[in-house]
């Protein structure tokens, strides 16, 4: 904020502020001498009253000085600007409005949505522009959506677009839209203005929105949220394990959020295929609860899961979907011929619902493989493995050596690794914190997973932070852990030969290995995507002929009009979709509302400088922000008040 003067030429008159002091000094009365009989009583009265009169005199002097200053202020005609005034040009102005069109703006407050108020404010802003001013509008969505590629003079078109385009059901960050606005303004001429109209909800990481703008662009915020809504939402639906197998128990975990100030009890409905389940969920005030339902399904294939709450003021997040990819068994590929690979195969074959597949050559992997375990890997078929890992196939690697490319992919040291014999053998221990993969063993009901001795293993100079440990040697060296850079890949340096370790001979080995395999699968991103992204087609080119995308209610969304349909053209709203060709369901896909959109509590945006941003209550105040607010009437009123106070003070007798 800053103050400007309409009559700066009168500023030297500020010296007159010293006038009351001068008058006080000059007009001090020269006291007459009076010989008085006795000062006995007079001194006593003086002592008692001086403590009251001295502050009163100072107050009078201050009031009179202030009065002169205020009077001068009236003549200087100051104006108050909510932000620092740089070198303003009186000519052209370029305005970019960043209009938040993310899903949270669909929340309704006082009978209308935040987006409806935001569009009305944007139109009011555009109306206040003068002829010749340029403007543009960027809608905040998953990908920022500018109306023009650069600010233009056709404001009517902008207003029409603002009114016509609905609010999206996508997430998005203000930061990206502001960055685009700054880029557009960088080449604009005249005064550059940026107004951000948003509910200023927290960023996905929970931090306040950060608006980074160069100093030569005047940034103003216009919050449209009137306060936090007592929103209840389903923010996550997860499967545990992520790849359930037909006939084996699994859990559907639903996270329910409550932004209200008091705890609530909510009915939660779960639809799994044609099966309905109803749960009562207690959610603490301003917190969340993880509701869990254990199921065992005999059917196979992808099943839709729909979790829903009763609708509230923001119904978009009261329903959330997920695809349940039930399979008959898990296909686990095992490559390698050493003792460790053999032990892996024996263990996998002993597990129910799991089938081992021998992989002789890594270049020719079977099409369906849920997990691959490679013992003695030397970096072969790295690109193929990389693609499969990216397609959500977990990989357990026991490398014999790591070529530079593989080392760079995994963030591990390159080289051939020597085998070290340890005499006496060294024991195992559980890392701290306890790995999530072996959470079942934490209570020690099934025996410690760290039982056993290791007498031989390869020496890897791995830095601690490269791995998320699952099992360690007693000396702290991680022998089994997730690769931090590629969490789908697990690093294995635990030889299972009879002369190498006795881990596989321990009674807890089979359940421990089975539990770890169950948890090797991470949440399937292949089957879901956030709203605002384009759905990939399961087929392309010639094979895509006859492909169509339908909703769960079989309403068509897109259909192939000829060869070449590659992906859906427009971002889809949250829900479940099926790719079909005729009667055949090729795949099922869940489009999800980003979790951050459920947090409707507004926050105060921050800047890189930490300064408080100018904030408008309504767009009507924008003109005042530009031209400043005349302060002289306020100064005059304050001066009158001070004059009245001074008069009252001088008239009032000092209490005896």
């Amino acid at each position, binding site marked *: 904020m800053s103050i400007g003067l309409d009559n700066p030429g009168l500023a030297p008159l500020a010296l007159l502020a010293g006038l009351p002091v001068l008058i006080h000094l000059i007009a001090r009365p020269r006291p007459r001498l009076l010989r008085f*009989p006795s000062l006995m009583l007079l001194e006593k009265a003086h002592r008692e*009253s001086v403590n009251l009169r001295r502050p009163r005199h100072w107050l009078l002097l201050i009031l009179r000085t202030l009065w002169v200053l205020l009077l001068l202020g009236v003549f200087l005609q100051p104006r108050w600007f909510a932000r620092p005034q740089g070198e303003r040009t009186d000519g052209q102005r370029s305005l970019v409005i960043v209009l938040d069109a993310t899903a949270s703006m669909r929340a309704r407050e006082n009978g209308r949505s935040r987006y409806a108020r935001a569009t009305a404010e944007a139109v009011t802003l555009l109306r206040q522009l003068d002829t010749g001013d340029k403007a543009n509008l960027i809608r905040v969505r998953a990908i920022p959506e500018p109306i023009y590629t650069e600010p233009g003079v056709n404001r009517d078109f902008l207003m029409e677009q603002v009114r016509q385009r609905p609010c999206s059901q996508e997430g998005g960050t203000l930061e990206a839209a502001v960055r685009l606005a700054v880029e557009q303004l960088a080449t604009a001429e005249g005064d550059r203005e940026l107004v951000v109209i948003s509910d200023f909800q927290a960023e996905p990481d929970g931090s306040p929105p950060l608006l980074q703008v160069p100093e030569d662009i005047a940034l103003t915020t216009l919050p449209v949220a009137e306060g936090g809504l007592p929103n209840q939402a389903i923010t996550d639906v997860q499967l545990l394990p992520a790849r359930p197998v037909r006939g084996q128990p699994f859990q559907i975990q639903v996270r329910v959020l409550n932004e209200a100030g008091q705890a609530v009890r909510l009915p939660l409905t779960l639809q799994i295929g044609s099966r309905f389940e109803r749960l009562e969920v207690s959610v603490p005030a301003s917190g969340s609860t993880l509701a869990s339902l254990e199921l065992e399904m005999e059917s196979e294939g992808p099943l839709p899961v729909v979790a829903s709450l009763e609708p509230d003021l923001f119904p978009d997040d009261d329903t959330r979907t997920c695809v349940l990819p039930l399979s008959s068994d898990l296909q686990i590929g095992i490559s390698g011929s050493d003792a460790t690979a053999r032990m892996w195969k024996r263990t996998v074959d002993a597990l129910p619902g799991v089938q081992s597949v021998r992989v002789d050559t890594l270049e020719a992997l079977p099409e369906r493989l849920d997990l691959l375990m490679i013992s003695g890997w030397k970096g072969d078929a790295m690109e193929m493995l990389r693609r499969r890992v990216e397609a959500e196939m977990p990989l357990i690697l026991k490398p014999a050596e790591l070529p530079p490319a593989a080392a760079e992919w995994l963030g591990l040291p390159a080289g051939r690794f020597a085998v070290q014999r340890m005499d006496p053998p060294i024991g195992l221990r559980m890392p701290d914190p306890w790995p999530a993969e072996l959470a079942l063993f934490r209570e020690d009901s099934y025996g410690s997973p760290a039982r056993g001795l290791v007498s031989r293993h390869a020496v890897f100079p791995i830095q601690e932070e490269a791995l998320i440990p699952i099992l360690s040697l007693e000396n702290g060296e991680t022998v089994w852990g997730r690769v931090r850079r590629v969490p789908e890949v697990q690093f294995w340096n635990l030889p299972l030969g009879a002369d190498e370790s006795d881990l596989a001979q321990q009674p807890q080995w089979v359940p421990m290995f089975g539990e770890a395999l169950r948890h090797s699968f991470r949440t399937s991103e292949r089957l879901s995507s956030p709203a605002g992204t384009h759905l990939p087609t399961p087929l392309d080119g010639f094979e895509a002929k006859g492909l169509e995308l339908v909703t769960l209610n079989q309403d068509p969304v897109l259909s192939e009009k000829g060869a070449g349909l590659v992906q859906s053209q427009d971002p889809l709203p949250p829900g479940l979709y099926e790719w079909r060709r005729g009667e055949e369901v090729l795949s099922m896909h869940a489009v999800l509302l980003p979790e951050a959109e459920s947090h409707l509590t507004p926050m105060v945006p921050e800047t890189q400088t930490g300064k408080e941003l100018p904030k408008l209550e309504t767009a009507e105040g924008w003109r005042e922000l530009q031209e400043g607010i005349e302060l002289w009437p306020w100064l005059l009123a304050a001066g009158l008040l001070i004059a009245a106070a001074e008069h009252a003070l001088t008239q009032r007798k000092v209490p005896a």
Partner: protein
Amino acid sequence: MSLSNDILTPALLRELDKRRFQPRNRVEGRHSGRHKSPLRGSSTEFRDYREYTPGDDPARVDWRVFARNDRHVIRTYEQEAQTGCVVVVDQSASMNFGKPETKHRHASRLAACLCHLVIHSQDRAGLYTVRGDKTEWYPPAGNARHLEGVHRALASGAPAETADLPGALRKLQGLLHTSSTLVLISDFYCEPGDLFHGLNPFLHRGFDVHLLHILDPVERTLPEDRMLKFRDLENSAELKTDPNSLRTRYEALLADHLRGFRELSVRRGVRHKLHITDQPLFDALSELVE
């Protein structure tokens, strides 16, 4: 009589001729006079009867009463004694204040009037002036020469220094042998308790004590000036202040000061009279003169 004329103008003398000194209490004197004494005496004015006791003069037995009642009673008569009045005048520097007449001048005229009236009432008047730690003592007498001396002393006395009234009273105590009327004329800038401590011996001996509290009108209300430098007449201490801002508090403190004297006076049977110098002179003497 030239000096006395400075204090007592012909007009005042004419006023004095119309008045006479009349003490409030019975007086105890060694000489016969016109005032009733607390003692029984030998005047012609009957007072009352009392039982005869051995030692009484048998000639004073009322035989008529004996004839009627068969009781020996003695007739007693009023003792008429000549009384004394001692005037104590404060001549401290604080009394040298006031316009057109200073408090000292006013007090001197009061004292002169009182002495004049006492002596012209065939009684005896004494004067005791106090200035600093110096005192002047004119023992009570009842002749014209004494009165002239008293007038001269009053006219020539110049106020100075600080008067120690309680101390001066202690000195005076040894100079007076019979109880009489004691009149103190002062502005009494001292603590009431201290003054009454000095008066206690007189009160115990039955003196009829009068305090004439002299104040100037300006001293009561302070001047109207905005700012004044006050200088204490007694110790030259100075205080620069705005009397307007102090007036209310000063008046309250002065009222407290006077109330202190008044309350102690009532309790001890002393007559306290506040006299402002712009009031008629004889108002101050209303308790002593008729």
